[in-house]
């Protein structure tokens, strides 16, 4: 479904991704692990179409070239990013934001827009999934949310958008164990034969809750090792040292954060 071949990304003169290959099949869950600055988040944003990247190589989704598409067109094609640092939009309530988002992709796909009442139903189901109270819908998008609330809000958005490919960028960072469990349960409920996921994380902890089909290790802009979930356990015990062949302090950091 997702095919990435020899992907290179540079920000200005700094190369971040240096020839990344990855194939994700329908319904598969892939975990990408790696040290800080290895390019994990940059990969997520390259998939989403963020401005300011010099890109080489190929990214296709179901055979369609994503690199030629604007971020909103990629969203309509089914790409969803769970942000590591969800953005605050003061004064715009969550419900309005979600409905505008959903209707924007529906419009682009030539589908009918969904009315306010029907949407409330959709939102309610999504809310139950991540155990959120109703007042959550009427608060401004992410403004004044705790770290855990922001991450849950990302999963809520994923549940509403029903993407083909969800990329969760360090969704586990900043979560306590209870919030982690809720978020993981939400993610697991959204797994299905038509939905693929890429889970980016530092820690094996999240992967105890979300069992990946494949685990990849990314170091210095490339995938250096792939395996099943036992690879994550190996990393937990031994760290990334075995995969790193140069001093980590020299690794570019700018691409690592959203």
């Amino acid at each position, binding site marked *: 479904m997702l095919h990435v071949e020899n992907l290179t990304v540079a920000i200005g003169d700094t190369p971040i991704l240096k020839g990344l290959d990855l194939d994700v099949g329908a319904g598969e869950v892939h975990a990408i692990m790696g040290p800080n600055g290895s390019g994990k988040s940059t990969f997520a944003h390259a998939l*989403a*179409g*963020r*401005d*300011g990247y010099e890109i080489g190589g190929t990214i296709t989704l179901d055979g369609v070239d994503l690199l030629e598409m*604007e*971020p*909103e067109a*990629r*969203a*309509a094609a089914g*790409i*969803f*990013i769970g*942000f590591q640092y*969800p*953005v*605050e*939009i*003061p*004064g*715009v309530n969550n419900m*309005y*934001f979600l409905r*505008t*988002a*959903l209707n*924007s*992709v529906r419009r*682009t796909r030539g589908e009918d827009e969904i009315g306010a009442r029907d949407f409330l139903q959709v939102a309610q189901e999504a809310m139950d999934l991540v155990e959120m109270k109703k007042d959550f819908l009427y608060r*401004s*998008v992410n403004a004044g949310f705790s770290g855990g609330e922001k991450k849950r809000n990302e999963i809520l*958005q994923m549940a509403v*958008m029903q993407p083909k490919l969800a990329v969760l960028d360090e969704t586990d960072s900043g979560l306590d164990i209870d919030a982690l469990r809720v978020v993981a349960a939400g993610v697991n409920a959204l797994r299905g034969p038509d939905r693929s996921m890429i889970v980016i994380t530092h820690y094996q902890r999240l992967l105890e809750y979300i069992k990946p089909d494949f685990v990849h290790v990314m170091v210095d802009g490339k995938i250096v090792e792939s395996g099943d979930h036992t690879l994550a356990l190996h990393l937990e015990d031994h760290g990334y040292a075995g995969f790193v062949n140069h001093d980590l302090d020299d690794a570019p950091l700018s691409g690592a954060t*959203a």
Partner: protein
Amino acid sequence: MSETMRGIEELTDASYEYGFSTDLDTDVAPPGLTEETVRLIASKKDEPEWLLEWRLKAFAAWQEMEEPDWAKLQIAPIDYQSISYWAAPRQKPVLDSMDDVDPEIRDMFDKLGIPLHEQKMLSNVAVDAIVDSVSVTTTFKATLAEAGVIFCSFSEAVQDHPELVREHLGSVVPIRDNFFAALNSAVFSDGSFCYIPKGVRCPMELSTYFRINSMNTGQFERTLIVAEDDAHVSYLEGCTAPQRDENQLHAAVVELVAKDRAEIKYSTVQNWYPGDENGVGGIYNFVTKRGRAHTDAKISWTQVETGSAITWKYPSVILQGDRSIGEFYSVALTSKHQQADTGTKMIHIGADTTSSIISKGISAAKGQNTYRGLVKMMRSAENARNYTQCDSLLLGKECGAHTVPYIEVKNPTAQVEHEASTSTVGEDQLYYCRQRGMNEEDAMAMIVNGFCREVFDELPMEFAVEAQRLLSVSLEGSVG
């Protein structure tokens, strides 16, 4: 320049949809301003002697005054002798019913989205329609009369309720208040007059729609609203003008009187022609608005300022009575080469008076936006309180936002709080919205509307919807 920044420039390059002009048969005075001009206006309007004298006094005062230069505005010199001070659409003299309104004027207002036929009007709003200098019609007069509410053009009020006009005219904004107020006092042409008797809650929203149509004319309206004890009224004004290459002068005065326990809510959506993307043309908008709040009274100003090449405007409240309340909610958008220097003055005289100021300035393209506000706590203002919040949003790299608060406190028990922030529409916010499927234009409109939320929440429903739309239109352009 990044792609997003370029996007913002395109988005803010708005087209002005009210830029058409209507071919009306208009009675226009020759340009120039002398004592004769003032006499001509008074005689055209068949005004009583006391009003003519009042005008002449104002004219004499104006001649001795100088244009204020303290605002952060760059204005080409205004030649006051090249402007015509009187323009009125020629139409049938009698206007007893809406059917008598000149069909061309009716069409013009239909085109502006303001049907003057009462049966066509959807909302519970009475409208006074003013073209150039003259009120052309007022709707729902009969319904209002039943409640004892007087809502008519200023000219009619001078004829039919001279004692009310004489008592209050100039009582809040005196003749010599400032250069533009003096000019207005000398040559004002028409405007709206509202009178809400004791204990009456006005049964509908009152609204005035101002339209400049003629070329080379100044527009000088005078609005007076008097709410007697325990009266309530909500008043709305909207403004548009045709697209022309010359700058046109607009100098209005609005006076509000809220007697004991009365409440006046005054909302403005100002969308005069802003000039083109090269800064050619546009309205020069110099407006003096002030209200006097008596004991336990409340005056609330809400303004959405998206138009005009120059905006110079400080809707103010004199908190005279104990426990009176003053509020100012403002959204000012400057794009293209627009300049706005706007804010408020809250003058606390009474004890336990409270005022709040929420100002949202948005600057795009080469727009310059200044918040200028005065909070003054007089010696008598025991336990008075003020809260001020000024937020500026910058869209682009060539625009500017400035905040100039003046605070004068003469009573040690008074409390003044001031908060200010400046932010840019984050590329990260736009990217986040676009990742969720929204196009750049929708995302920008949503973020900017969100920034203005607190102010829009103060507007009556229909106006809030209009204001949001206007903001989106002002921000959109060639994209989409």
